[in-house]
């Protein structure tokens, strides 16, 4: 594949207002770790490496094994290679930043409209259970959590049709968070770049963020999956699948 597609597109000043959250905060990685965190990392890391080596599923083998090695290395060195490897970005005051983008071969206006329909957001972002509109600006967001559900109120802080949508949790939210979705024309008539930026305060601090990532519930992977699914829904109208195909596995239940 050619590499001529590389194009860091600067966000225009108009897209970055003064009180802008995720896009303006400086991410820090590689900070040294407190002793307690190091020992937790070490034991979790070694356990994961073991799980990875034992795992029957090849992907788990690769992912668990390497993540475990990363955690163990992090504990041993007191530095945070894993934060870089796993792209866990944190602000100075402990907010976790998550961002990703996808290019979709469709005009911005229609893509924006899908996101602006707040009750539809759980179809785009799978960790959401529901979004209920309260009024013009306010809405109630509910996410699935291991312990049940967590709800908070959020308000829309910016709404530029076809270009940008931003929101922020209202004071008192269980998970303080804010985010934005940008819709920019992709160069060369390739459709629209959809960029999502989220910032949140993880309940269990940075260990919580790393463990969540390893277990697969961390928002960064979730976001990438969400954006890929959105692109495929828009470009194909469905998701590709092998669900239910024939194989030599009795577990397929078709034999």
């Amino acid at each position, binding site marked *: *594949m050619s590499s001529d597609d590389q194009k860091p597109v600067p966000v225009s000043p108009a897209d970055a207002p003064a009180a802008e959250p995720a896009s303006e905060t400086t991410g820090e990685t590689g900070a040294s770790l407190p002793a307690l965190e190091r020992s937790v990392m070490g034991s979790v890391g070694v356990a994961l490496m073991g799980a990875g080596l034992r795992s029957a*599923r*090849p*992907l788990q*083998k*690769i*992912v668990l094994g390497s993540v475990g090695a990363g955690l163990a290395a992090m504990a041993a060195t007191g530095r945070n290679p894993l934060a870089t490897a796993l792209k866990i970005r944190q602000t100075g005051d402990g907010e976790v930043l998550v961002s990703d983008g996808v*290019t979709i*071969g469709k005009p911005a206006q229609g893509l924006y409209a899908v996101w602006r329909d707040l009750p539809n957001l759980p179809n785009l972002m799978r960790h959401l259970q529901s979004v209920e509109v309260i009024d013009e600006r306010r809405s109630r967001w509910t996410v699935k959590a291991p312990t049940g559900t967590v709800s908070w109120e959020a308000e829309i802080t910016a709404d530029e049709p076809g270009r940008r949508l931003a929101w922020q949790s209202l004071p008192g939210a269980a998970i303080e968070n804010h985010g934005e979705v940008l819709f920019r024309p992709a160069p060369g008539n*390739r*459709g629209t770049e959809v960029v999502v930026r989220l910032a949140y305060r993880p309940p269990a601090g940075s260990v919580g963020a790393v463990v969540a990532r390893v277990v697969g519930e961390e928002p960064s*992977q979730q976001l*990438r*999956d969400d954006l*890929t699914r959105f*692109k*495929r829904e828009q*470009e*194909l109208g*469905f*998701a*590709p*699948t*092998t*669900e*239910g*195909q*024939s*194989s*030599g*596995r009795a577990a*397929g239940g*078709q*034999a």
Partner: protein
Amino acid sequence: MKAIIWQGTNKVGVETVPDPTLLLPTDVIVKITSTAICGSDLHLLDGVIPSMEKGDILGHEFMGEIVEVGRDVKKLKAGDRVIVPFNIACGLCDPCQRGLFSACDNSNPNHRMAEALYGASGGGLFGYSHMYGGYAGGQAQFVRVPFADINAHRIETDLRDEQVLFLTDIFPTGYQAAEQCGIQPGRDVVAVFGAGPVGQFAARSALMLGAAHVIVVDRVPERLAMAEAAGCQTINYEQEDALVALREATGGRGPDHVIDAVGMEAHGHGPGALVDTAKQRLRLSFDRITALRWALLSCAKGGTVSLPGVYGGLIDKVPMGAAFAKGLTFRMGQTHTHRYVAPLLSRIESGEIDPSFVITHRAALDDAPELYRTFRDKHDGCIKVVLNPWA
């Protein structure tokens, strides 16, 4: 139906499995009339490609007749005779629209795995590990073909299966390898490392594209003989120093372009090769790179190193200094098979090439496990195996 199943490292078997069904409205089901074993299947057999699972149906070079058609399929109907290239493309995304079918954004349901390893996911492949989608392959009696309007190509001539089957992979793969060298007709000398099926087609494609001279390097006598039959010069690297022989054959310049049609299969000599093998066993490095090193060291200044041979993981001790000093261009990647089907089919129809020359073994599907071993061990003069699922 009967299918060839990956049962674990170095274990394949014939099993009876459920017939495939339409899973999406854009699918068709093909009754397979001919299917081949590919050199890259050997990478699955020996376990160097990650993310195979026991029970996977192998095979990505197959053709047959459509027996069932999803309701959103527009260009095909039951009874059509089709070849099905190994890449699964959606036809709608930007890479597909640009003809980069193997880079399809949308056809791999397991994009996450490839992203974790490679930073981005290419398109799905038939029968080629879960990282590439986990799609059931075509060493079977039937297969489900997704995005059928793009991925199944109707064959309307009365050419035999054997003449068109290799449009699914090895002919386009060899051709793309030669094409991307940018051969200047009548002037450029091309060397091909590896005289397996892809190397054979790469060498012939280089000649079709006007190469002044083609030199094929391998160690297996019958493979070298097959290349000689096409008008190539050959070098047996077990009998002479390949790098010296290439300098001699090119008046000291080195070949203008070098095609490494070996990938992970390279057998090499010397400590470098031993280190690679040891690392490969330890899974620290997936690839053996003797051929790649030779390619970089032998290639003429300003030349192209073209890599159709599959690389799956990390490599080290790559002589990047040689590549830089000589200003080499690298070209590589999975073949964008779909774009070559029509032009290469017309070369076959015109009689310019008959791809069946490469077949050495014809057998029933039941014989596949045995023939996997024969092919892997290069026994019995085995170069290309074609299986009949209904024999």
